[in-house]
């Protein structure tokens, strides 16, 4: 034992040495740009007019009065809320299906995972083709029965649902994998005890499995929620923010203000808003985490 204690000081010293490069690199590559974002947001920088380094709050004052910004928050929330609900529902349904309903189909898990690794640009492009009425096999199929499928991308809620559908396709495997892991962590004794007591499979699911999954479901949902805030390729490729400004979510609006309108500082202030929004949710996640691991 005393020998082990003798090793400790050396160990701790080498741990510090190992930590140093990582800390430095994170500071340079990640923290510094974030500080840059704050500096830009509190000054006024315009790619055309140049940089006035004096401290100002005018970007944030302008935000409170910007109708496009307020509208973009609603777009963001619709995309996130509907997207997360759809992904969690689909992912959980598949996980429960593979684990409980048809265990013989477990080999399909590998297939269900595939959409998860498809780059989002490719996801956006293939769904764009499926939502292009002249091209889509879905439209062609319903045409056979004389049914005209509406062109989703031309209407406000249609375009929002199109992005939600594409995002659901890309992200249900993430939910599925984590819920599968959670399901496997639930002891089957409980299921058996309940069915011995005469509960049907459906009752077991609603009364036992689902309540036990609740912490995992909530975590996955929050995690996905934060990811959906950052939607970019799907919007850029499928709708370009349109029709009109119907799918200009906040993240996309920050991009447009910065890189299309050259209003760098204004774009940065929108990014600061998003950062604080994401940080608040992550804080909630971290707190809930602590509670789950304590339990």
């Amino acid at each position, binding site marked *: 034992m005393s020998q082990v204690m003798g090793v400790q000081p050396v160990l701790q010293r080498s741990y510090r040495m*190992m930590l140093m490069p990582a800390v430095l690199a994170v500071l340079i590559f990640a923290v510094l740009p974030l500080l840059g974002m704050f500096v830009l947001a509190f000054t006024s920088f315009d790619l055309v007019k140049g940089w006035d380094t004096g401290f100002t709050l005018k970007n944030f004052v302008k935000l409170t009065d910007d109708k496009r910004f307020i509208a973009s928050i609603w777009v963001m929330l619709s995309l996130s809320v509907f997207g997360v609900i759809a992904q969690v529902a689909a992912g959980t349904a598949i996980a429960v299906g593979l684990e409980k309903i048809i265990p013989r189909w477990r080999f399909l898990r590998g297939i269900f995972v595939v959409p998860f690794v498809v780059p989002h640009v490719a996801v956006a492009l293939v769904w764009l083709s499926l939502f292009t009425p002249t091209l889509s096999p879905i439209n*062609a199929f319903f045409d056979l029965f004389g049914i005209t499928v509406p062109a989703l991308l031309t209407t406000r809620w249609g375009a929002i649902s199109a992005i939600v559908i594409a995002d659901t396709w890309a992200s249900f495997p993430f939910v599925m994998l984590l819920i599968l892991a959670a399901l496997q962590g639930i002891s089957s004794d409980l299921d058996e005890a309940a069915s011995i007591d005469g509960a049907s499979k459906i009752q077991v699911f609603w009364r036992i499995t689902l309540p036990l999954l609740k912490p995992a479901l909530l975590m996955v949902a929050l995690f996905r929620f934060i990811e959906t805030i950052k939607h970019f390729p799907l919007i850029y490729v499928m709708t370009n923010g349109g029709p009109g400004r119907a799918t200009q979510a906040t993240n996309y609006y920050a991009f447009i203000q910065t890189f299309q309108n050259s209003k760098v500082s204004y774009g940065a202030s929108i990014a600061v808003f998003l950062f604080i929004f994401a940080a608040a949710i992550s804080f909630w996640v971290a707190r809930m985490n602590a509670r789950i691991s304590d339990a």
Partner: protein
Amino acid sequence: MRKPKGKHDFSWKQAAGVTMMLALLFFALLPIIWSFILALRPENRLFEPIWESPTALTLGNIRNLAGTGFPHALFNSFVTATVSTILAVIIGVPGGFALAKGRSSRKFVASWALLLLRMAPPVGFVIPLFILYLNVGLLDTWVGLIGAYMVLTLPLVVWSSWTSLSQIPDELIEAALLDGATMAQALRRVVIPAARPGLVATAVLAFLLTWNDFFFALVITRSDTVTAPVAIMNFVSYASVDWGSIAIASILLTLPTVPVIVFANKYIVQSMGGAVKG
């Protein structure tokens, strides 16, 4: 126990379950099958339903794609994703190890900061980076893009190697050191082999993150260093959309990621689970 059912008893509930699973399977597969069809359709049959001319298929789209800038963009993607993954692993894994095993009172700060960096919207990083790069001439360079990718990969690698390395018992490392191994030897011979699955998953996730990136590359690259996800957009123009090339390019872009995820997905779950559970 309830009375055992015969093997062939028909159950409506079971049928509903099977129907639901089939519908979801169709949803999962439709875009994949469709992109293969698009990739193989000759241009003049593109707007004809596939069941009207199921045999009108061609490899011509592949030949066309070979003549564009796309292969070079794939090469760019490969270089930037590989280099930024290797750098992040070399710098990040020792850091993760130190956080897993060292005694520090600041671990909570570290985990909180890493979580925050992973959750932060990329647009917040990209705006200052763009201004910086514009002024120092790093736009459209490999160094610039790889530097930007460290924003994505470093927090991920530190975080998830921290998770997987904390499962290695302290005694294992101490025993190796007491046997006279140096720290580097202990790492190479004992710690890394024991944690290999988790570390491989970490590297795979970091690679995927950069390989799939669209946003950073869209802002930072112009022509020479354009990566494949951005280069695909060259096939989309106001006048026409070259669906055949898009489909093949998408398939090529996805192919390298598929085997990895299918074989490694067990470990990926652990490492994502770590990411979620903290």
